[in-house]
């Protein structure tokens, strides 16, 4: 049987990765570890002077680690859903070459997502191992929490690629990072519980998909119950992923087969 076409795209990514992994991976692994050290260890000392009910009486480091895991997975997914897509459509135009072969636009989208899944998993795994080394999370629970974190990252990758493939200018990228990715990263219950936000902002944070990913990840990492029933959290993240896949199969086609 012929190899599913999206897997051929995945293989292409893997081959290219031998040359590009240094530039793309080291930063993706290092940044969350730096955050963990600065916030968890540094800021944590300050926070932990008095036990905090809002953190469920946990150390700040233990509370922060799963949030950072999910948020970093989202950032990795966002990176994979933006720069490589723009390279494919505009900077190097490799997507245009790919669709001249039997590869179809939707195969490109799916192949990219499979590749993002592997990459996000590796980045998240390294983070969990390092965090376990700090004593921030038991290794077994950290590994369990990889599931929802990676799912969150891939869902963001799917949605962002579906939009970015249509871009005809690059400026939009800076805005996307500044006004979407960074606020999500900061206000989705990553660094502090959303209950700390003013009521309106807290309500907004609770509809953001990252918050649901964070809640799932934290519940698995700490062995606690999430804020809402877990099918709700999982449903939101899966819905984001499905929406990204479906939208991408339309937008990739529109862009690459005008």
């Amino acid at each position, binding site marked *: 049987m012929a190899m599913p076409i999206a897997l051929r795209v995945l293989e292409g990514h893997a081959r290219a990765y031998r040359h590009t992994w240094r530039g793309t991976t080291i930063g993706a692994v290092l940044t969350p570890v730096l955050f963990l050290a600065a916030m968890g260890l540094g800021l944590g000392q300050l926070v932990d002077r008095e036990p905090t009910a809002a953190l469920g009486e946990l150390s700040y480091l233990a509370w922060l680690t799963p949030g950072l895991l999910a948020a970093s997975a989202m950032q990795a997914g966002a990176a994979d859903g933006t720069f490589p897509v723009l390279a494919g459509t505009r900077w190097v135009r490799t997507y245009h*070459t790919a669709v001249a072969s039997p590869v179809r636009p939707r195969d490109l989208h799916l192949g990219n997502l499979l590749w993002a899944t592997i990459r996000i998993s590796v980045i998240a795994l390294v983070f969990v191992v390092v965090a376990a080394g700090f004593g921030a999370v038991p290794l077994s629970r950290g590994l369990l929490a990889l599931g929802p974190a990676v799912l969150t990252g891939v869902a963001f990758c799917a949605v962002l690629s579906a939009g970015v493939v249509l871009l005809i200018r690059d400026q939009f990228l800076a805005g996307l990072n500044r006004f979407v990715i960074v606020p999500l990263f900061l206000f989705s219950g990553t660094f502090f519980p959303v209950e700390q936000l003013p009521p309106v902002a807290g309500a907004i944070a609770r509809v953001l998909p990252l918050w649901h990913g964070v809640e799932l990840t934290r519940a698995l990492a700490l062995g606690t119950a999430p804020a809402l029933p877990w099918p709700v959290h999982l449903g939101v993240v899966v819905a984001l992923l499905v929406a990204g896949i479906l939208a991408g199969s339309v937008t990739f086609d529109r862009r690459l087969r005008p």
Partner: protein
Amino acid sequence: MPPVVEARALTKRFGTFTAVDRIDLEVARGEAFGFLGPNGAGKTSAMRMIGAVSPVTEGQLRVLGMDPEREGAELRARLGVVPQEDALDQELTVAENLAIYGRYFDLPRPVIRERIDELLEFVQLSERRQARVDPLSGGMKRRVVIARALINDPEVMLLDEPTTGLDPQARHVLWDRLFRLKQRGITLLLTTHYMDEAEQLCDRLVVMDAGRIVAEGAPTALIAAHATREVVEIRLAPEEDEDAAVQVLERTGHRVEALPDRVLVYVDDGDAFVREVHARGLEPTAVLTRRATLEDVFLRLTGRALAD
């Protein structure tokens, strides 16, 4: 066997803009067929429909007897495409660019390895096999793209401006390679806005302008039908009254085209005409007699020069 391309009233619109306007084409196996036209003529749009990467807006199109809409993937597996931009992954090696593309066709890895050897030999880049693409010259990159397009052993090659932007020597190397492909029986479809390229490579061509086909035929037949045997190019001194000079030239009974920088006169005997010019008292700064080319055909048919 069905023709390679069969198009009836083929049309491509982007919104309300018509890029390809009801063109008819028939390309036979083994032919080298050209689309000659200026920027924006619709050459790329036509090629992309034939290459099954752009839906047909209206009209009929069959490529290798297949419907590009319904059988796109099967059709693309039998085509080799050289796009207008190289689109090579600059960070990868020459061989890796070819290997990744070969896997898109689901070719077995050993077959790909063998073909890379053969193809790099063919495009005279064997010693660059493991070199990164980035530092290669424009002509070399173009040859890598040709090797990439051949990785699936295509029956038909679609070449969109294969030599645009290259220096004359690099162009000649490419023409030589393309000529060899034609000798092997591969059908070549190419677009160009160089008349010399069209004359060198094409058995037959269509001249396109604003989405339409304005002429079709073998290069020599087109020249015979739309131009004279020779063309005299006359440059006048800046102080000379151009309109008056053109009137004098027109009185000779030959066709005259006044371009911004020179005047062209279409004649059968250039030397005799040059003597006549002097006899009529004109003192041009330069006079050149040359063979008529497709450029003259284009000028005749559209009233504009082909080169930009």
